[in-house]
């Protein structure tokens, strides 16, 4: 890849920091996060994203208590309406959106589905984060041959288009389940997180404050964990919000391809969408609702993540 061509950057930085030293005083001094927040507060894109995500999280928390019906069990009155010609009970009184093809209340499923969707998104992201952090820390923290070895593996992983890899991983498991979906999506995020973390760890590695800690005689492990890691997490966290959106969409894609969780009693939007494709022609609504939910939530996380990324990017902080 291209190298960063920062000729004379050192000097430029020196001058920048000179300017900064002059402008950042004690009462005006704000941390990166604080200043990012200041900008974000006024960013409509971020605010829309934040609102969506908050609502979504809120719904995920309260859904089981407010859902009118048990989403995992068929409602007899809906179930009795199911026949080969009408496998999907239509909207009716008491059932705002009707039922699904197992006679469960669709509205309740959508509500409660937010929870599982969030779990899939969060766990997949956390999994990817954990793996990425492990590899990234190994590579960036230890460096040397470890760095090369880990990075070669990461490069190979990166050279396989991510969704393809997710398919392969999901297909590897004899018994697809929610966990295989989470695992597959987590694994494809690993190289991204690893690279990201390693990149910022490396720049930390050569930064003055790490050098200072070294000069101070701080133990190497402490340098990695107390100084390098905490300071490298910024971009990783931002990436995390974006990955959450991607994870939700990817989970839907896996379900769509039949590699999702086949046990559909606990509702999850991606899985609901995947299951609904058989009915898409005749009963599009049961696909459209989860699809819209996914779109809105993914949009929420994406809006938030992108604006966060932009706000934290020192290059755009002018």
């Amino acid at each position: 890849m291209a190298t960063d061509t920062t000729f004379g950057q050192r000097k430029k930085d020196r001058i920048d920091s000179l300017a900064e030293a002059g402008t950042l005083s004690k009462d005006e001094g704000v941390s990166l996060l604080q200043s990012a927040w200041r900008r974000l507060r006024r960013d409509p894109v971020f605010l829309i994203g934040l609102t969506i995500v908050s609502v979504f999280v809120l719904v995920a928390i309260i859904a089981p208590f407010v859902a009118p019906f048990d989403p995992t069990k068929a409602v007899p009155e809906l179930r009795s309406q199911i026949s080969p010609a009408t496998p999907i009970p239509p909207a009716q009184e008491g059932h705002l959106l009707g039922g699904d093809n197992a006679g469960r209340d669709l509205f309740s499923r959508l509500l409660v589905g937010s929870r599982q969707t969030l779990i899939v998104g969060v766990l997949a992201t956390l999994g990817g984060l954990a793996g990425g952090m492990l590899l990234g820390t190994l590579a960036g923290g230890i460096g040397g041959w470890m760095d090369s070895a880990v990075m070669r593996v990461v490069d190979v992983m990166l050279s396989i288009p991510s969704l393809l890899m997710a398919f392969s991983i999901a297909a590897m498991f004899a018994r697809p389940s929610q966990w295989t979906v989470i695992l597959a999506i987590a694994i494809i995020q690993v190289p991204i997180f690893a690279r990201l973390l390693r990149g910022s760890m490396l720049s930390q590695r050569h930064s003055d404050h790490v050098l200072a800690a070294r000069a101070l005689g701080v133990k190497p492990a402490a340098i990695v964990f107390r100084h390098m890691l905490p300071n490298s997490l910024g971009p990783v966290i931002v990436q995390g919000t974006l990955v959450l959106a991607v994870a939700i969409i990817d989970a839907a894609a896996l379900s769509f391809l039949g590699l999702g969780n086949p046990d559909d009693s606990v509702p999850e939007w991606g899985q609901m969408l995947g299951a609904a494709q058989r009915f898409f022609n005749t009963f599009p609504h049961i696909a459209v609702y989860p699809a819209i939910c996914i779109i809105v939530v993914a949009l929420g996380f994406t809006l938030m993540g992108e604006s966060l990324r932009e706000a934290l990017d020192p290059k755009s902080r002018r």
Partner: protein
Amino acid sequence: MSSATTGALLEVEDLRVTFGQKGKRQFTAVDGVSFTVNPGETVGLVGESGCGKSVTSLAIMRLLPNRGNTVTGSVRFAGQDLFSLSDGEMRDRRGRDLAMIFQDPLSSLNPVVPLGTQVTEVLQRHKGMKRGPAKTRATELLDKVGIPDPTRRLSEYPHQLSGGMRQRALIAMALACEPRLLIADEPTTALDVTIQAQILALLRELVVDSGTALIMITHDLGVVAGLCDEVNVLYGGRIVERAQRHDLFKVPRHPYTGGLLASIPRLDDPRGRRLSPVPGSVADNIPWDSACAFAPRCSSAIDTCRTVTPDLVADDAVPDARLLRCHNPLPVDGSQAPTAPADPTTTTEAS
């Protein structure tokens, strides 16, 4: 060289630049700056970081961002008010009548366009030259600013040049249309001392040779001492002292000027002299509207300083034509700045 000369090339009159959009706190970066520049004259703008030097120069060139700032006052170039020109007319002037050199030579050159194009485009734009002649002229220009092997350099990219050469190339571009006014905004800050010396020598030679008016912006008093005819010392967006360079360095009248001079170690100082820093930092400033912004850091501040805004007036205590903005200037005789008091500030800034 009186600043009131009517034949001045550039007259900056009560220039005021305010940043800040709705909701945000307004911030006046340049606060009523006036000065003039005559052909062949070099005027220096000095002051510490953030005092408004660059903003002044950008305002003159009308290169400030379109939004987020308000510029008032007037800038008259050869008798014409630049602020009343249309964008197109201003564009015609820039590069032809007024040119500018910036501080970082690498980032000021487009990295993906060959040097030659970057030089010839000005010629083509303003002189209506065809490619061929423009190229020839560009070669001459590079040669003139002391770039060896100019033909080869024309087809090279900025990163292939050394720092000094890049700065020379920038100068060549600025000089391409023989502008009548050249603004150099810290042109040597990014360079090493030996190279800085080369560039300064080049600028000096240019002014002498072609009679171009030069505005030299820097925070390095040493640079000003060697180059400028007249020096404006800026503090907090206002000129606090203006004098001919010999006068200024010999008898600094404003405590800030004095403080600056006293805090710089000099090669020809006797060793062991304790430096007398200007205490505090820019952050300690108070607004100009009801006081002297420098008062919190000033070692000779009197009560008036904190209640009455000083004006920029002719300083009668010295024989030279000097303007000063101070209630309690430094004495004329003691050419050294007073030693800093132990803790002159009321802020948490320790010293």
